């Protein structure tokens, strides 16, 4: 079973992603902010990371860039989630593997997971 770490400051979004992914047989770990996310990744070793780009007090773009530079994490797919209209551009800019614009459909969510786990 693939393990997915979801990091978003909105508890509603966090819960709904967890429900959908668990319903589809993925193991889900959640984080409600980006603080200590590297430590968490090192401990839980997820197969994929969903990261909200816009969280208070933490820069999702910087986290992505840092992780992609780190040999230990660079192969873990990172999916940017955001309610900004140019999520796609941001994802490309920071070198993320995929993006999910809010609001999304269940199909959108599952597709982005499948496509990126396959790539891996």
């Amino acid at each position, binding site marked *: 079973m693939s393990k997915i770490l979801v990091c978003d400051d*909105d508890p*509603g*979004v966090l*819960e*709904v*992603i967890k*429900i*959908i992914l668990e*319903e589809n047989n993925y193991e889900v770990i959640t984080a409600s902010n980006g603080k200590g996310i590297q430590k968490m990744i090192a401990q839980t070793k997820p197969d994929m990371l969903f990261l909200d780009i*816009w969280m208070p007090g933490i820069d999702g773009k910087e986290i992505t860039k840092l992780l992609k530079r780190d040999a230990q994490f660079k192969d873990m797919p990172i999916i940017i989630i955001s*309610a*900004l*209209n*140019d999520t*796609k*551009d941001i994802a*490309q800019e920071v070198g993320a593997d995929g993006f999910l614009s*809010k*609001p*999304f*459909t*269940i199909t959108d*969510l599952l597709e982005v997971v499948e496509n990126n786990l396959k790539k891996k």
Partner: protein
Amino acid sequence: LSLNGLKPLILNGRIAFGKEPYLTNDVLHDKKVSDKLWIKKHKIKSFAGYPLILGDNLTGLLTVFSENEIRPHTHETLSLVADSLAQGIGRLQVKEALTNSEQQYQTIFSTLTEGIVLQGTRGEILAANSSAQKILQSNFAEMKNNSMNRNNWTNYIHEDGSPFLAKDFPFAQALKTKEAQKNIIIGIIKNYQTTWLLTNSIPLKDSKGQAYAVASSFQDITQQKKLEKQKDEFISIASHELKTPLTTIKSFTEILKMQFQKEEKAQYYLGKMNREIDRLTGLVNELLDVSKIQSGGLTLSKDLIEINEFLKEFIEDIQAAYPNHKIIAQSIIKQYIAFDRHRIYEVLTNLVSNAIKYSPKSDKVILSTEERADKIIFKVKDFGIGITKRDKKRIFDPFFQAQTTIRQSYSGLGLGLHIAKEIVLKHGGEIGVTSKKGIGSIFRFSLPLQTNLKT
């Protein structure tokens, strides 16, 4: 000679009317003279009158009454004197008019809140009002020393933050192209602060068409820009905040739909809810788009896309959203071109949903394409209420919505077509509409037939 009771004015009137010199050496018996009493009293023998003509206009009269005869020679001399007088008056009038006009312009020039600078061909300042000095501040000194073109040009930026090169300055462009440079925005960075100026430059041309100076106006729009930025940030944050709960609602609606797969009514209600959520999302996106367009921040991310495949997918999606109308595809070409998938999808969604919205009595919309030498034309044809000539001019303006005679109201923010236009223009295409009231409309837009992802 008392001029009291000078009444041979009828004579003057005639001279004025005829615009020709007049001479009589027998005033007493001249039928044209009315006031014989005055003539007698002053023993007047002769009269000569000369109109003072300036161009086509009469500016005055020179009249001579004499107790002696006025000889032809004198008459001729007086006639010449009248001409010189007329010319003298003319020069005085022109001078006065010039002085007045100069005064008027000086007053306007110095009281304008807009800065005005007149520069010679080398950039030297010929004239400037006090507002210009106030607005340009230390840059004014640079302009005055004509060092603006050489130094510090990296301190001048475009709206998007890129450097404003000296050769692109409105002054330089006005000189080069000999055409007015209108509404150019320049940012000046000084001490880590940016002052934004709205400038207009107009070349002054001599009779041979050579530009010999450039008049430029400067308006400080820093405050305006700041407010715009605050507005954009607000809209950006507000729409982000609105979309977050929408995300949760949408997902839970979908989860419920899956859970109650076998219950028809639940499926129907949840389907409705889902569409309304999408509509709300669309409205939030429209607001965000318009704010972006207005701040010049609309960016494209182009891919090479096959039109036939793209439209097939689009029609499938839009058909699902509008099950009561049939979306018919006609002569769709197979061709790869470069465009922003998401944005053109948005344009098509706008045109087709508009077509449906404004055709309550028809049940079909036709989508077709056409290939031209250098572009591909997309057409959306409906059989709806049509657009009046008056509305046609404003239909692509923001916040515009067609009013119908029955005062039927159509929902939406009235931003869709404006956004569509901006997206198409940004792609280098065109958008337009032909329509007949009561018969229907055809919206068409073009995309350049190119495969370059960068331009």
